[in-house]
């Protein structure tokens, strides 16, 4: 699946998007945050406070317990500040 990062999440990780293949044990958005955090210091820094991270699956906002199977694109970003 494709993973995209925005704003300071993107800056901390250092890439805007990448393709990842987490194991089947990674079922939810929260699981994916944990799995990504273990990939390295930049990821751990980006996800150091998981409760402030927002997520979207295929362009729709989701909660941390959302199941990721079947997702084409998952995005992680800080709370939004548009308008």
């Amino acid at each position, binding site marked *: 699946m494709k993973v*995209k990062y*925005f*704003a*300071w999440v993107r800056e901390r990780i250092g890439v805007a998007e990448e393709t990842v293949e987490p194991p089947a044990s990674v079922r939810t958005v929260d699981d994916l945050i944990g799995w990504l955090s273990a990939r390295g210091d930049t990821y751990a820094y980006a996800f150091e406070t998981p409760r402030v991270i927002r997520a*979207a699956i295929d*362009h*729709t*906002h989701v909660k941390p317990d959302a199941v990721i199977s079947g997702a084409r694109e998952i*995005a992680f*970003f*800080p*709370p*939004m*500040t*548009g*308008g």
Partner: protein
Amino acid sequence: MTAAVTIRIQQADFDIGHEIAALTKSRTDVGAVVTFSGICRGSENGEPIAALTLEHYPGMAEAEIQRHADEAMARWPLTGLTVVHRVGRITPGENIVVVLAASQHRQAAFQAAEFLMDYLKANAPFWKREESPKGTSWIEARGHDETAAKRWTKS
């Protein structure tokens, strides 16, 4: 006549007069157009800023605005809705966003414009980074923006 919904995300500035004219052109059933425009301030929390840079999530930003526009169209008797949101570097005094709601009567137009702005602030994937004499930093979300959006879901 059918109601027109226009949604644009662009770097270029927009002309509010032109956007109003587009909602009323060739029709005589519009009695009210409410316009909200958001403008870049020259200071944030008392500190001067040189510019804002707006980032968005292409694809999702359009989809989120469309979803909320559809909801506004279903909730109020509108004749048209326009949302234009700029991205990229914006300096103080420049436009950031405009929301226009047109209706036969003012109440629906006022309410729809406020509803859309409240939802945009809390749910549309845009992020502002500010440039100040101290460097650049991401603007933090305000809790009252989420509170403002949630009040529309109470019945």
